[in-house]
């Protein structure tokens, strides 16, 4: 499933089976479609659960950090509710904590979240509704859910992604609250090695993406780009720059 011809053929096959729901191409009765949809959400939620555990721990660390910076209790919780963006929120804490200004904090957050731009383009054809609803559904894009919902050949499973994001969102907010309220009692979650859960999970998801020589090449080029850029560029830039490796897809195989 590497060249473009294969991709479009594969996606057609999937629509015919109705595994990926697009309103114009769904077959069967409305009720069947609904059942399939809620099954998709449920399967996604289960798949997202281990990530929710890791997110909970991360949320607690964020709450503890915010408390240590004197942010109080309400601000970090509101931040987690309206931004729902782990890496960006940690970046803001780092910038403001070091005495940096609002502009620097926002720039850092934008760089870290820039990767959601291409990820949003990728999932766009599978979302539903008008502009507003699509914009809303796009908020469900987080790294783990997006990768879990990837079905190869550029196809995505909308319900699976949204389902996987829900437990992670809840965990992030609850974790932040726990950390902000009871920070001192919890201690340092890093002691338990829980911060390594994210790279380990990303590795698991990566292993599933390595379907052929081309995906392996792309992963190696992206890894090399990221390694080279970490010491040179601000956080977030290495990841978004590594997306350039995907342009290998323009070459005919």
């Amino acid at each position, binding site marked *: 499933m590497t060249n473009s011809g294969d991709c479009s053929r594969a996606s057609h096959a999937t629509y015919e089976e109705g595994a990926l729901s697009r309103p114009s191409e769904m077959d069967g009765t409305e009720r069947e479609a609904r059942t399939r949809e809620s099954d998709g959400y449920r399967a996604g939620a289960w798949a997202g659960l281990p990530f929710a555990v890791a997110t909970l721990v991360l949320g607690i660390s964020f709450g503890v950090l915010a408390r240590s910076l004197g942010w109080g209790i309400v601000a970090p919780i509101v931040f987690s509710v309206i931004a729902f963006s782990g890496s960006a929120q940690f970046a803001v804490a780092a910038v403001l904590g070091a005495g940096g200004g609002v502009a620097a904090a926002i720039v850092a957050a934008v760089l870290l979240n820039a990767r959601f731009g291409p990820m949003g383009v990728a999932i766009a054809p599978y979302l539903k509704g008008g502009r507003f609803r699509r914009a809303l559904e796009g908020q469900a894009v987080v790294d783990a859910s997006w990768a879990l919902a990837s079905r190869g050949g*550029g196809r995505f499973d909308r319900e699976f992604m949204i389902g996987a994001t829900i437990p992670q969102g809840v965990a992030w907010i609850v974790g932040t609250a726990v950390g902000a309220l009871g920070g001192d009692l919890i201690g340092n979650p890093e002691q338990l090695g829980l911060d390594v859960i994210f790279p380990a999970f990303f590795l698991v998801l990566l292993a599933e993406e390595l379907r052929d020589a081309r995906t392996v090449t792309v992963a190696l080029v992206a890894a090399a780009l990221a390694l080279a850029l970490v010491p040179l560029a601000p956080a977030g830039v290495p990841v978004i720059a590594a997306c350039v490796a995907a342009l290998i*897809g323009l070459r005919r195989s």
Partner: protein
Amino acid sequence: MTTLWIAIVGVALASASIKAAGPVLVGGRELPPRALSVIALLAPALLAALVITETFGEDQHLVLDERAAGVAVAAAALALRAPMLVAVALAAVTTALLRAFV
């Protein structure tokens, strides 16, 4: 305190706009085949980069610490066809043990 709230609202708006951009601009259109073949490779590229930055990155430095050992153990476990949760648990245990005893 006001600085903090401006940052919070600003980052929330910026983050929401970035996530909304693709879905709003592309809408429900089918992407052209050439775009699809690039998007098909976006997941391996992004995931590889995230593994690198989350394993070796720290404040614009490359570091080799307990995280790398944990991720290496997870990689070995995956190569031996261990289930995904086992691989991840082994990574966490490895990192925690190294932090506790080394």
